[in-house]
């Protein structure tokens, strides 16, 4: 993943997001979401770009870059640095834990050789802990990119990972 993101790309993504959600205070999180979706993370250069485009003078709101950074760093679905080509989100909450999630996350870590929050050296995988995904009926559950896997056992972790290039 190239760390360099074109400023023009950022401007056009921010433009599009503002076109869709508006340039008001309540659009801050949706705009950050669009940027995160477009690049896989929120590049640092995106924050001043968003700040320049959002203003609400009558409310007396001054949006500083630091405010945007504080928002971007708060939410779990945002990343402030590039992630691997595939992102695994694993839920470790009680319902999945009771159904055997502990062994699954251990197997995932062993297979990938990384801990939660890390990215593999070849930049193929990132492993991220997430809170409940709301599909607890089939726990333990994890998500690879946009694909949901339920009823996972330590035995079928390897096969699932092998599906990804």
């Amino acid at each position, binding site marked *: 993943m190239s760390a360099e993101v074109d400023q023009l790309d950022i401007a056009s993504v921010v433009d599009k997001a503002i076109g869709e959600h508006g340039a008001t*205070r*309540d*659009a*801050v*999180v*949706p705009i*950050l*979401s669009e940027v*995160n979706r477009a690049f896989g993370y929120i590049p640092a250069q995106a924050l001043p770009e968003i700040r320049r485009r959002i203003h609400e003078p009558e409310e007396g709101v001054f*949006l500083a870059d630091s*405010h945007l950074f*504080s*928002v971007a760093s*708060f*939410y*779990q*679905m*945002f990343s402030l640095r590039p992630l691997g080509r595939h992102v695994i989100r694993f*839920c*470790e*909450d*009680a*319902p999945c*834990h*009771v*159904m055997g999630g502990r062994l699954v996350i251990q197997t995932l870590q062993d297979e990938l050789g990384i801990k939660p929050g890390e990215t593999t050296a070849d930049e193929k995988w990132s492993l991220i*802990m*997430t*809170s*409940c*995904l*709301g*599909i*607890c*009926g*089939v*726990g333990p559950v994890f998500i690879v990119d*946009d*694909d*949901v*896997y*339920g*009823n*996972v056992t330590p035995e079928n972790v390897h096969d699932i990972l092998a599906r990804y290039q």
Partner: protein
Amino acid sequence: MAETNFRKAIRWMVLVSNDQASLEHGAEDVFRKFQEEIEACGLSEEVSLTTISDVGSREDLPLVIVYPDAAVYGPVIPEDVHLLVEEHLVKGKIVSRLLAMMHEPSPDVAWLHSRQGSLPAQKRIVLERAGMIDPESLEDYVLNDGYLALGKALTQMKPAEVIAEVDKSGLQGRGGAGFPTGRKWSFVVSAPGDPKYIICNADESEPGTFKDRLILEGDPFSIIEAMTIAGYAVGARESYIYIRGEYPLAYQRLENAIQQAEAHGLLGDHIFGRNFNFHIHLHAGAGAYICGEETALIESIEGKRGMPRARPPYPPTFGLFGKPTVVNNVETLANVPPIIRNGADWYHQFGSPKSVGTKVYTILGNVNFTGLIEVPMGITLREIIDIYGKGMKNGAKLKLVQTGGSSGSIVPASMQDTPMDFESFRRAGASLGSGALLVCDEHTCVVDLAKVLMQFFRFESCGKCTPCRIGTQRSYEIICRISEGKGLLSDLDMLQRLGEYMTEVSNCGLGQTASTATRDILKHFREEVEAHIVAHICPAGVCPVAELSPA
């Protein structure tokens, strides 16, 4: 009402799975074949053909689900389609040879499957339509009593009468706190300030809870209608649905529902041709458990970190952008249209006198059957586990149930006959919470469970107030120590005290309830915890207690 060409009722609904794995196994061809065959048999008017993406990880994909029989076929190949149409859709016979094994049903499929009479006492108000109609079709919704309530409210009732009816119904908030809905609405009416806002709290992030997701995915129009009624009742013109970012399908369905309602004059300006305007903004969260707390949710909509405000003032007087705001949970809102449609007296026949109506629960954990049920208030845990959970998995013994997600109470097996309504549970010192029922068998270690739960709160604490930020961290460290066999008996007092501090002085519900499970575990399972400390034994054999060196 806008002129829509409502044709005759749909007789069958056919769903073809289209998740990634199904597509790899030819789901597209199966879908196309269904289109051809249905057309060829002249059934296009009576069959609604659509796709379903969330069927879980299975071997027998693609699946084909036929309602109202809730027959699940799989794996289906294009060559099977002719037979299925011929036998099931034309003759009404289930083709048992092609039925899928339902041993590991996904939540969607599981509870839909159960709908056909196998679960006797279920009473559906909130989930009445979910799974029975095409959630993307306004037509289907209207054919099934949709928008009758809004029509009645707008044409026959004054706003105050709507509130009086909801108040009389005894409807209590289903988000966990159980506050009377009618009273909340009337607070907003009398609060000074304009404009007023309605917010639908669809940030369902309590672990183990996915009732709101299924309501939103299965019956999105009902929430749109309910919010519009609420807007009419309290005099709001603008509203938000705050939906968590982890629910993309529910987001799409709501987006579609809002567009369709607007296109038919059921949302927007001059609804039903009257002088009433109401708009809904769909707002996706970005992953934060704390945003389910109503003031954190409001902060998040305002484009800030989702940190709870100091209260009072409460949202009814000082809410979104400082204006009077109603914040209602999805399930609460879903109760509103049936109450308006059928009247408060009708609603009173369900549940118990002090806890009226039904409650949607998710059953999880070590039972044979996990999924979603809607039952009258006042049912007991024993009934739920035996009837709906189909008993404990592998015949194991019930040890405890955690009710209401991670912040919920631990109910030991000995208390499983307590009626589950707001009143009885409060008296028993437990909370009903969000409706998640995590059933744990004898192989569950309470220390390990407490550890996972406290890890969750440590991770999700927003860090604004000290008792919660430090308290969850310290509690977690202590529990870890105990689980490793390195704990001291004095740790238990410390744990207890930390819990009391957090409950008493934390700013919001997260910190106030973070220690609920730990407290209950110390109350009901103290011997087991002490075994870790004194004897270095984990009776359930789960914790990595340090082995005793042979002396």
